[in-house]
């Protein structure tokens, strides 16, 4: 597709030699593509991205970023749709989610896409991070790409924590009571922090509006800014390629790598659609601050932390709530400066690889323990909402 890029700085030369009448007509009335290209430079932007050189050895592992981007866009679309039917107050949040799930056509499916989408995003993000970690792709000059990526990971966890409360059912309420209490274990300012997060002493109307505002305004804005920066850096610094340079010439992103991306996106989205259709998300009984017969559990990817809290001896909970997560976060954030080895080869940076693998294994084991010890869900099966819910709406 050899085509001259038209930019404002370099308009197409059209003065000589003398033109045929048909050509003159074309210049006076340029095609829509030429017209827009002169003004937007869109084609040049697209072509620059499609021609992005991929070092030899780049393959299926490098498709996760694109899948993640697609999932996040999907999440934005389904979230927007859900927000149109959702009302963030203790009096109406639960009813509105029951309404979405049971009465709005395709409501259960759209909610399923959003709920399963959040799980899939966490899984793909972790795989993406692990790929970059083991390939050592965060090394000079890509330190900031990694740092911004870690910030995006934290924003994603923020999304899942704030989104978890919104249905205002038992699970949502109690996971938030416990989750926000974690802030209170911070030394000195813990209680103020708790009140700030909850908007008061108890989880209530102001907690819900706070979490809703953060979930639909603050975090999306942060995510967009950080993702734009991340993508800009990825293109500016180019793909790192395999740990050891491989023989061969770089090939353009289009078509081979983009085709791989498309296949992975298709499989990922296919899985998401299947999960949303086959396992529509349940909604439990409405939040009851007086209920003592409920065992709160966080979303599965916070279960590692939950298990860690169980084994902490009396008075040391701050270790599990602040110290360990804080150290892991800081370690992740500053990994490019902790790993001083100039080589990207795993054998040449054994200590970091061992430490990282140990942390991953520990988190994995704790999460697995948490999953195995999770009692079966309360109430009815996933696919059929409890009759009481339907009655509440009518």
């Amino acid at each position, binding site marked *: 597709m050899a085509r001259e890029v038209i930019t404002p700085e370099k308009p197409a030369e059209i003065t000589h030699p003398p033109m045929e009448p048909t050509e003159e007509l074309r210049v006076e009335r340029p095609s829509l593509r030429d017209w827009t290209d002169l003004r937007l430079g869109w084609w040049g932007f697209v072509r620059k991205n499609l021609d992005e050189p991929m070092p030899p050895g780049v393959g299926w592992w490098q498709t996760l970023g694109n899948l993640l981007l697609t999932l996040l866009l999907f999440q934005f679309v389904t979230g927007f749709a859900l927000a149109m039917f959702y009302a963030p*107050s*203790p*009096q109406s949040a639960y009813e509105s989610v029951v309404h979405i799930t049971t009465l709005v056509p395709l409501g259960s499916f759209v909610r399923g896409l959003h709920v399963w989408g959040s799980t899939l995003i966490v899984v793909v993000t972790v795989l993406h991070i692990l790929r970059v970690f083991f390939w050592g792709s965060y090394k000079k000059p890509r330190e900031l790409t990694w740092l911004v990526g870690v910030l995006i990971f934290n924003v994603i966890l923020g999304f899942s924590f704030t989104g978890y409360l919104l249905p205002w059912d038992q699970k949502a309420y*109690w996971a938030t*009571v*416990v989750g926000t*209490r*974690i802030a209170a*274990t911070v030394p000195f300012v813990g209680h*103020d922090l708790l*009140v*700030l997060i*909850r*908007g*008061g*002493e*108890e989880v*209530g*109307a*102001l907690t819900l*509006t706070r979490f809703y505002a953060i979930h639909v305004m603050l975090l999306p804005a942060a995510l967009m800014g950080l993702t734009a920066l991340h993508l800009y850096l990825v293109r500016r610094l180019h793909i790192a390629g395999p740990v050891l340079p491989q023989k061969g010439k770089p090939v353009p992103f289009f078509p081979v790598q983009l085709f791989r991306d498309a296949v992975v996106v298709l499989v990922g989205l296919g899985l998401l659609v299947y999960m949303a259709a086959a396992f529509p998300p349940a909604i439990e009984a409405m939040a*009851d*601050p*007086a*209920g*003592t*017969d*409920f*065992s*709160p559990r966080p979303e599965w990817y916070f279960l590692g932390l*939950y298990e860690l*809290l*169980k084994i*902490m*001896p*009396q*008075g*040391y*909970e701050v270790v599990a709530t602040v110290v360990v997560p804080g150290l892991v976060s800081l370690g992740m954030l500053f990994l490019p400066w902790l790993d001083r080895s100039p080589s990207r080869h795993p054998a040449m940076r054994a200590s970091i690889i061992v430490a990282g693998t140990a942390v991953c294994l520990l988190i994995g084991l704790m999460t697995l323990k948490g999953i195995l010890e999770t009692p079966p869900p309360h109430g009815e099966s996933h696919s059929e909402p409890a009759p009481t819910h339907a009655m509440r709406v009518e």
Partner: protein
Amino acid sequence: MCECKNCNNCDKKDDGLTISRRKAMAWSIGVINLAVFGAVFGPVLGFLGSPLRARSKKEWVSVCGLDDLEPGKTKEVTYVVRVKDGYTMADHRYALYLKRDGDEVVAIDPACTHLGCKVQYQEKQARYLCPCHGGVFDTEGNVVSGPPPKALIRHAVEVRDGQVFVQRNA
């Protein structure tokens, strides 16, 4: 050609004392930006932090009749109070464990002192168990085992005219 260190287009020499027009404007732009940021973020942060200034006061609530409690036994009661919840007044239901000894009643708050899950009373074991992180308390609310840092909170109780009143934060 200007020899001034601070600008490209004036004909004054930099004497180290006179501030150049260019520098003065750069500083002014900085100050204006700070003022604009302050004008937006100051009120917004104060607004968001307003729950910190809310002061709670105590109130007495009737929770049940003394005759509803069997001497020597622990009973879970729920009571409803009208509370201000942010922008709304709402009826909130709360749970409480009451233990009667003669005419004395002990009121134990079911919120685990670890991370706030509701503890469940097990009559056979005479223990409060927290379903979250495995905290165990005795019938008086003292920690037996697990991660909770302190005993379960006890509310002040008064019995007036056969009614049990409990003091709570309003």
